[in-house]
């Protein structure tokens, strides 16, 4: 009796719940772990994307309503209408990413290898500005770059005003927008670079120099390849959000600098032409996806997952 009891309590209660054997439970475990994330993805990612595609094919206007007409021509139409904004976004985002890299690499290198006990302080300094809102920081740039502001007056007193060209200003120029993007996304480049450099075994560089590699060769053949996942992650983390950014163009630029994000924002909120806005968002997503796929192909998917892990 007692043995029987023990066996029924030890196992799952008889009957319908038999499926919860240990093996089944083990098999179910991954699914249970994945479920919340999957549900999240479906609700907040997959469904919105499908709905966006659906909306982009509608025609109509906000007063009389939109109806589904499978109007695929919205894609070529909005592309030809707004390709300048699209190209500009890619250009600005690309330039800002390169600038970010040029600035962040020495910075990350310094923090990883030379900063010693000051390491955490420097890392904190990189992250610190992010405790305030991006908008407030960009407005601070507005003040810095103002026509009568600090930067312009410094240039003037140095007699360098002619570098500004005929407009004689810094604010409301493409340079200001690119500088703003670079500033705002710098940590997204610096932190992954730091992470991959920090993990590096310095002994490898030592070994290379022992084998008569010059410092430059050692850097090129050892440090740079080992930092590749960080470079890749940093580039993606900077470039992708920078394409969609509209705050910098809005606050530091003029309509001649507006990017695709500005167009999408105003199509959604001001013109309320939801199909065009949805189509443009879709186009941007596809472009980003293509870029990631190309990069993954070029660098190999192993690098991609390493980069993501970094």
């Amino acid at each position, binding site marked *: 009796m007692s043995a029987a009891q023990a066996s029924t309590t030890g196992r799952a209660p008889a009957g319908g719940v038999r499926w919860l054997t240990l093996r089944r439970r083990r098999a179910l475990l991954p699914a249970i772990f994945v479920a919340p994330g999957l549900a999240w993805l479906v609700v907040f990612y997959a469904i*919105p994307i499908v*709905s*966006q595609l659906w*909306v982009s094919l*509608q025609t*109509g*206007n*906000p*007063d*009389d*309503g*939109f*109806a*589904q007409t499978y109007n695929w021509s919205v894609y070529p139409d909005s592309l030809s209408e707004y390709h300048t*904004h699209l190209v500009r976004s890619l250009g600005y985002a690309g330039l800002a990413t390169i600038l970010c890299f040029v600035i962040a690499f020495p910075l990350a290198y310094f923090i990883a290898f030379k900063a010693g006990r000051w390491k955490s302080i420097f890392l904190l300094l990189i992250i610190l500005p992010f405790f305030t809102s991006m*908008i*407030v920081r960009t*407005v601070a740039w507005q*003040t810095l770059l*103002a*026509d*009568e*502001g600090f930067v312009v007056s410094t240039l003037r007193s140095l007699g360098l005003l002619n570098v500004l060209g005929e*407009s004689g*200003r810094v*604010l*409301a120029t493409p340079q200001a927008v690119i500088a703003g993007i670079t500033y705002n996304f710098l940590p997204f480049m610096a932190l992954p670079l730091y992470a991959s450099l920090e993990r590096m075994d310095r002994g490898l560089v030592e070994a290379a120099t022992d084998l008569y590699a010059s410092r430059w060769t050692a850097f090129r053949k050892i440090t740079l390849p080992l930092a590749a996942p960080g470079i890749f992650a940093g580039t993606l983390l900077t470039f992708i959000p920078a394409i969609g950014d509209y*705050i910098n163009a*809005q*606050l530091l630029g*003029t*309509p*001649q600098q*507006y990017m695709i994000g*500005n*167009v999408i*924002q*105003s*199509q*959604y*909120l*001001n*013109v*309320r*032409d*939801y199909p065009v*806005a*949805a189509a443009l968002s879709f186009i941007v997503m596809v472009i980003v996806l293509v870029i990631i796929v190309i990069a993954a192909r070029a660098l190999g998917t192993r690098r991609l997952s390493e980069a993501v892990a970094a």
Partner: protein
Amino acid sequence: MTSDPTGTPKSMIEFLDRLIAGERVSRRSALRRFAAAGLTVGGSSALLAACGGVKGTNEGKTTVDVTKVDHPTKDPVGKVVISNWPLYIDKKVIPGWEKKVGGKLDYIEDYNDNEEFYAKVRQELEAGQPIGRDMVIPTDWMAARWISRGFSEPIDKDNVPNCTANVLPALKSPAFDKNRDFTVPWQSGITAVGYNPKLTGRKLESVNDLFDPKFKGRVTFLTEWRDSAGLVLLAMGKDPVTATKDDYLAAIDKMGEESAKGQIRRFTGNDYAKDLASGNIWACIAWSGDIVQLQPDNPHLEFLVPEQGAMTWSDNMMIPKGAENPYGAETWMNYVYQPPVAAKITEYVNYFCPVKGVKELLIDKSPDLANNQLIFPDEQTLSRLNGYPAFSEADDREITAAMQKVTGA
């Protein structure tokens, strides 16, 4: 008041900026700026709306016979619910009304943005349900939208003798409500040219002066086409009220050219005020209320109402369809159109007062206020002011889209 239509949080930034700079941030505009920031959030509901089959706003249109309106008097009037823009009243005037008519005023400051408020109540209005307010205060063009869709209750003129008697002649018959059957102006403002004579080096006379090549890149216009294009049309010698859609499109083209040339630096909402004060821009299309608020710290700033004309707008008291206490709302309209009450409100909000006889009341007490052209425009200024045009929805959309292309997206 035309609030920042781009819906970006620029306005809030400008507010913070001024706050940091220790500048006087006055009452209504302060909240307005936060409100504009809130629009970004409001915008996301539009996004959500876009996900379903998007329903239009034209379904359930009705017409209203304004001649048959009769709101019987009640004593006491009971509870009245008003939604107004934040910080747009001196609340000390409320007890006076409550005592006089035996009412209870539920004064809610939740009208933060024309589009946003409209989006909130639209579905109830379409379904013919009450929205729980006896009065709302939309800007002219938004009031026009409510009226054309049959969402507003006509005013029983027998109940508002003060309004009929005391409204400024210039505001008596706007294009969207010729006989003021549905609306009574609450406060008004002027859209014209704000500039810094120290930087321009000369007095400006016309909106055309903004196209002077010497000011290249030092000029901003407003994103709101009703204001910007209206002023450009006036400078071309056209009447913005009777101008056609093509006239407006031509004016927008003109701004587009100037923007492409780099003459116009940006198209803005309220945020031009900061650029004007800091000297980044020398001249711009500006709203009178902003300039009144900038002047204490920037006394050199000038506001030009050109001889060719300027635009004017009002926020209007209006009774929504299905309101529970229209008579109560009318007693309030009648009450605030007594000059002593209007004077109190003007002293607090500093906007252009639509009630006759207020200036005379204020001249001894606060001569600065009474002599401010932007609060009490003289006959000459008033004669230069023009209202907004009334276009069909389709035309309106076309013009909005054209302006959007020019303003940068």
